[in-house]
């Protein structure tokens, strides 16, 4: 059972994007950071325990050529071995900041060279993999940036080809230490998933084809790839082989966000149908087949949920944003 905790007010409402909430937990300092995209600006908030708001900051997309103010597509914290960077993607390019958003350390302008006049040009999909940060683009290419332990000397080290339609989301997990282990999944608007192994050069391990609906959100945990689709389904795949193990008719409308609590193996799914569901993932000890159990369903009334994240790694609390909602709703288990 979960109960509704004190909400955190936002300066501007959340935009109708997918994966529109990023959470950075800093248990050592008793702080939690939240990041939400409003439209042309993104809001960063830091809160004390019990959701008491402390500080707040707004970031904007860097202006560039074009006739309207650039819109931000996503804001996300990337936790790397020696530092944490905040990444902001927009219709102009990719901005990277120190984790509190105070200083911009890197700017990458998108190359719209091959775009036809009818294509929208933007970056979307952000994840950290070891000392790399991977960012997706409108063309389907995934940019891999090499991040030094400190300083602004960030370099674009690789461009991954594998997708033909705009990237929606990227998920990573620390390599499990075995050979040939999948540790990154990229998803796109056509529903195609690409599974990669990271390294000085990334290797494409397998592709999981789509079925006519976009895949707005993916997560990766212990070799299990969880993908949320535009038709409300959540699929669980064996990442290295791409085999489908479980198909859940989880929601009545398009899924807008997925999140994972790695310590407990809990998966959070949120959709435009106002529901948030929590699932428990596991593997059967005999067959090592993926199994799933429904833990909890929460209806966030009258809210088209557009972002959802666990607020702690054991999955005992989560936060949610909704289109036109000027607050972050928090829930914790009793």
């Amino acid at each position, binding site marked *: 059972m979960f109960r509704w905790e004190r909400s955190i007010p936002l300066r501007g409402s959340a935009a*109708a994007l997918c994966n529109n909430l990023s959470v950075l937990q800093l248990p050592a300092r008793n702080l939690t950071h939240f990041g939400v995209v409003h439209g042309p600006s993104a809001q960063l908030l830091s809160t004390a325990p019990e959701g008491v708001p402390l500080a707040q900051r707004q970031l904007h997309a860097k202006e560039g050529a074009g006739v309207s*103010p650039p819109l931000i597509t996503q804001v996300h914290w990337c936790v790397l071995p020696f530092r944490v960077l905040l990444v902001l993607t927009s219709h102009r390019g990719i901005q990277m900041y120190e984790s509190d958003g105070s200083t911009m350390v890197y700017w990458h302008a998108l190359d719209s060279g091959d775009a036809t*006049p009818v*294509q*929208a040009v933007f970056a979307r999909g952000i994840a950290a993999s070891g000392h790399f940060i991977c960012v997706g683009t409108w063309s389907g290419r995934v940019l891999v940036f090499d991040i030094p332990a400190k300083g602004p000397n960030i370099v674009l080290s690789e461009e991954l080809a594998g997708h033909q339609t705009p990237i929606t989301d990227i998920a990573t997990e620390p390599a499990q230490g075995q050979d040939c282990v999948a540790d990154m999944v990229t998803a796109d608007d056509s529903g195609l998933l690409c599974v990669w192994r990271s390294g000085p050069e990334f290797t494409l391990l397998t592709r999981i084809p789509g079925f*006519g609906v*976009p895949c707005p959100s993916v997560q990766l945990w212990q070799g299990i790839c969880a993908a949320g689709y535009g038709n409300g389904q959540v699929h669980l795949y064996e990442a290295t082989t791409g085999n489908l193990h479980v198909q859940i008719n989880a929601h009545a409308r398009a899924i807008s966000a997925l999140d994972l609590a790695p310590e407990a193996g809990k998966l959070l799914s949120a959709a435009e149908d106002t529901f948030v569901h929590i699932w428990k993932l596991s593997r059967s000890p005999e067959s090592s087949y993926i199994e799933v159990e429904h833990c909890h369903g929460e209806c966030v009334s009258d*809210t088209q949920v557009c972002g959802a994240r666990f607020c702690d790694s054991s999955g005992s609390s989560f936060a949610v944003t909704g289109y036109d909602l000027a607050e972050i709703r928090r829930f914790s288990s009793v």
Partner: protein
Amino acid sequence: MSVRTLPLLFLNLGGEMLYILDQRLRAQNIPGDKARRVLNDIISTMFNRKFMEELFKPQELYSKKALRTIYERLAHASIMKLNQASMDKLYDLMTMAFKYQVLLCPRPKDVLLVTFNHLDTIKGFIRDSPTILQQVDETFRQLIEIYGGLSAGEFQLIRQTLLIFFQDLHIRMFNNKGEEVKRIEFKHGGNYVRAPKEGSFELYGDRVLKLGTNMYSANRPVETHMSGSSKNVASWAQESIAPNPLAKEELNFLARLMGGMEIKQPSGPEPGFRLNLFTSDEEEEQAALTRPEELSYEVINIQATQDQQRSEELARIMGEFEITEQPSLSTSKGDDLLAMMDEL
């Protein structure tokens, strides 16, 4: 965001506008032939070929204010007049209705079905005028051609673009008992309904979806009141206070779009009339006085449309002048436009 959003936005808002005007014309007992003339004139101007050409060019969306200017011009394309208060209310109603429809669409591609519902009803309004009917059918075919083959992902992007346009717009509507009739409301709790079958995307067909059909067609008096709660006003105010660095771009966009609008001047003895979106003149005056500063649209009237009579006059007058030297070229299009406005 998506550069293919403007035609859908424009046609759906236009459709809602026509539904509301049709209802008000009936409520105000405007004689049938006058009412038909007004709707015919507006529909004919909306679906004018040159205008549609400009509209369908891939481009980003502009602000709500810029778009309002187009609808104001459109509403005055005939013998009907609207005061500012009524025009404000009309625009508020149009935008809220379409926002509600976009939000409730079960599938992103359904926004195309909503557009088709609007066009089907518009065709009903002009059923006796074959030329205008042809214009509408032409646009219908263009929509099918351009949007028929787009993927679910592209429609999701269009939907997100529309929702960003409508973000932070909160105007609640009440019936005459003061009960809230429309608000973003979703079903909640464990009862699920089977998804309805997909509607037809052809020129003619059963759309299945009811969103985009005329909700004013039954003669229920649906009163509408503007909500002036401070919470909503604050977020609206944030948008309008900051000076818009793209003002020049927006003016150019308007000039291009309206340059394609052919407005027929009311000729002959037929007098114009004024349509009221409120139930009485006093109410309209009261609404104009009490509209919060932050919600005002601050409209500038730009006479940038084609005018057959005037251009003939001008041509004749210019023919009588002798031009001895080359006129100097202007430095930028923006300056031209601003100079033209100064002369108004």
